[in-house]
């Protein structure tokens, strides 16, 4: 055993990968010798109140003031699922969130949700496809939709914030009921798609009988690296998406834009946020036959650099009012122009998706899983209304899915997800 491994074992921590390395009786003897019984106990995930394990590679903290997966930078893969609650009482639902809390902490430590049992006639507790993979910066974000509060059996009606309601119909919406709404959502983000999928699969599996799956969407982001820093990712139209985004490292910005502050909503939402989800189909075939100048006028930016039209650098000021030979440099029908007409801001955290081929048209079924976090849904609604009918981008996209979720605040150790709502 290397010094590193020994250290981590001594500190009662072990990752999925390290678990694999520790094979054979001799090694187990060594662990016991080195760290005593409690180390082994905790090493195999037997502590029901598992803490964040800071020694684990590529680890995002589960416990904290806010949930993970919101201010977490540079997500690469997402598996998003919208669930229908079939639990028949608040007690049942609360128990599910308590179980999910324990499992989420384990998953984000890069471990199995529960140790294996010796009875081989039982199916494995953990589905196992993440064995040997590390924590992979897994984040898990949980939210509840407006419909959950209308379920009378749960008795949560009085807890519903007034702003938590279905998003209004927007111009050019062509929603497909298969991608609309949901009682509960879970967003899993990770560096590895299999780690994200494994997390959702196991959470859904342990929720059988209390939740059913309504819809889901996997997505991805890739990053150009510069000086070991992730640059703004490109969407499938090849434009940088997220240049003018809220700075997640600025607690001032996050307080102003994302985190619900006391007296701004129901108390259980303090330090939580609202998640707007849109599944936006992108018509790649029509886009690909559009002239580069037309593509750039659609976004209001240069494609390769991401700079505002007429400028050189991605992060230069837009200066929307610039004119050249009498006309606007940034067209007033461009996506960026319209988005900046309202003072509202939101934290965008979108992913591309590709889902095979549309059987009716033979075209790619691809697009953007748009996810935005804001302290009040009206921020998203105002921006989307501003884009309205005039957005030149509308020619190339169709909104197919829509949902709004209230995401709980973070979890303090010893408590559980949604405690503020259910207790």
């Amino acid at each position, binding site marked *: 055993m290397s010094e590193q491994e020994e250290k981590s074992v001594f500190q009662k921590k072990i990752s999925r990968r390290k678990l*694999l390395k*520790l*094979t*054979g009786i001799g090694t187990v003897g060594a662990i016991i010798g080195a760290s005593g019984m409690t180390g082994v106990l905790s090493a195999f995930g*037997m502590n029901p109140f598992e803490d964040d394990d800071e020694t684990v590679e590529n680890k995002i903290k589960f416990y904290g003031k806010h949930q993970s997966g919101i201010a977490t930078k540079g997500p690469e893969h997402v598996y998003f699922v919208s669930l229908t609650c079939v639990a028949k009482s608040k007690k049942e639902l609360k128990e599910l969130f308590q179980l999910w809390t324990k499992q989420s902490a384990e998953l984000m430590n890069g471990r199995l949700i529960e140790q294996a049992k*010796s009875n081989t006639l039982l199916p494995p507790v953990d589905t*196992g496809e993440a*064995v040997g993979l590390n924590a992979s910066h897994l984040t898990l974000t949980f939210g509840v939709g407006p419909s959950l509060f209308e379920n009378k059996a749960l008795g949560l009606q009085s807890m519903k914030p007034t702003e938590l309601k279905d998003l209004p119909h927007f111009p050019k919406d062509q929603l497909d009921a298969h991608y609309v709404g949901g009682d509960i959502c879970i967003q899993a983000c990770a560096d590895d798609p299999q780690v994200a999928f494994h997390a959702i699969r196991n959470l859904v599996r342990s929720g059988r009988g209390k939740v059913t799956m309504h819809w889901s969407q996997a997505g991805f982001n890739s990053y150009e690296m510069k000086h070991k820093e992730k640059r703004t990712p490109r969407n499938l139209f090849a434009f940088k998406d997220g240049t003018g985004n809220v700075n997640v490292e600025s607690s001032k910005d996050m307080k102003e834009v994302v985190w619900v502050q006391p007296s701004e909503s129901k108390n259980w939402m303090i330090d939580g946020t609202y998640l707007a989800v849109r599944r936006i189909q992108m018509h790649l075939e029509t886009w690909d036959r559009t002239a580069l100048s037309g593509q750039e006028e659609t976004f209001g930016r240069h494609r390769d650099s991401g700079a505002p039209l007429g400028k050189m650098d991605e992060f230069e000021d837009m200066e929307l009012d610039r004119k050249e030979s009498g006309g606007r440099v940034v067209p007033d029908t461009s996506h960026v122009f319209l988005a900046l007409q309202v003072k509202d801001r939101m934290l965008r955290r979108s992913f591309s998706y590709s889902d095979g081929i549309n059987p009716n048209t033979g075209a790619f079924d691809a697009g953007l899983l748009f996810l935005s976090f804001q302290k009040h849904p009206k921020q998203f609604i105002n921006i989307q209304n501003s884009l309205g009918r005039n957005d030149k981008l509308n020619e190339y996209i169709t909104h197919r899915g829509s949902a709004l979720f209230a995401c709980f605040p973070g979890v303090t150790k010893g408590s559980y997800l949604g405690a503020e709502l259910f207790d």
Partner: protein
Amino acid sequence: MKKMMQVTGVLLLTSGLLVGCGTTATEKPIKKEVSQASTLDTEVAAYKAFAIDQLDQFVIATEAFVEAVKAGEVEKAKELYAPARMYFERSEPIAESFGDLDPRIDARLADIKEEGQGEEEWSGYHKIEYGLWVEGKTEGYEEVADQLMKDVKELRAKVETVTVTPDLMIVGAVDLLNEVSTSKITGEEEIYSHTDLYDFKANVEGAEEIFKLFKANLQEKDAALVTTLEESFASLNDLLAKHEDGKGGYVSYEVLTKEDTKALSEAVDHLGEPLSQMAIVVE
């Protein structure tokens, strides 16, 4: 695969140590012996008796069905078809122990083709189903009917020789539900008669019978699991009851909407997870 095995080895060892150390406030001691068939003798014997009884009735119901086919009574044969098959579907974990008899009685044309065999190898209930519903006749199916009768009687005779174990019952209960998920839900079992809901119901009853036999034992080990299973069986049975035809049978599977089949499928999945936990009976 090898690595996985090694990990399991480590975990086993650890569990053993835990039991010894008395640090297991939250953990149940894990027994080393997986199969303790001796303590489940009553359950095993009761299950064998159940299967024999089902197959006795299967012989009787098949006799009536075969008689109708040979008498050229198409409508009567159609009426007898689905209810007769239910005895077989209920006892499938045992019936399918006989690799050659099961396909001779129950193969679909698709199964035969998958095996690389020609249509001439096709026999049993589903072949006659084709005659009754697609061709609307019994002529030419007399020999198939005779052969079916012989095969069903042989199955009944052979069942005496089956060694029933707790493993067979545990795996069988889950397999019955898996049958439902993979072929009944999709309407691929009864592609001509669309009587899939009869098979569906019978598979569920077969799984429920195994649960009932284990119930007292399970109650001691995990009372919450018993409650969950009772509730899950009840919700699935309630859903199935919505599709009864009011004459003691079920409506055609073709009548079901996508929402209906999705709800049934979800109810089966809800039941499947706790059902697979029945394996704790051997601990």
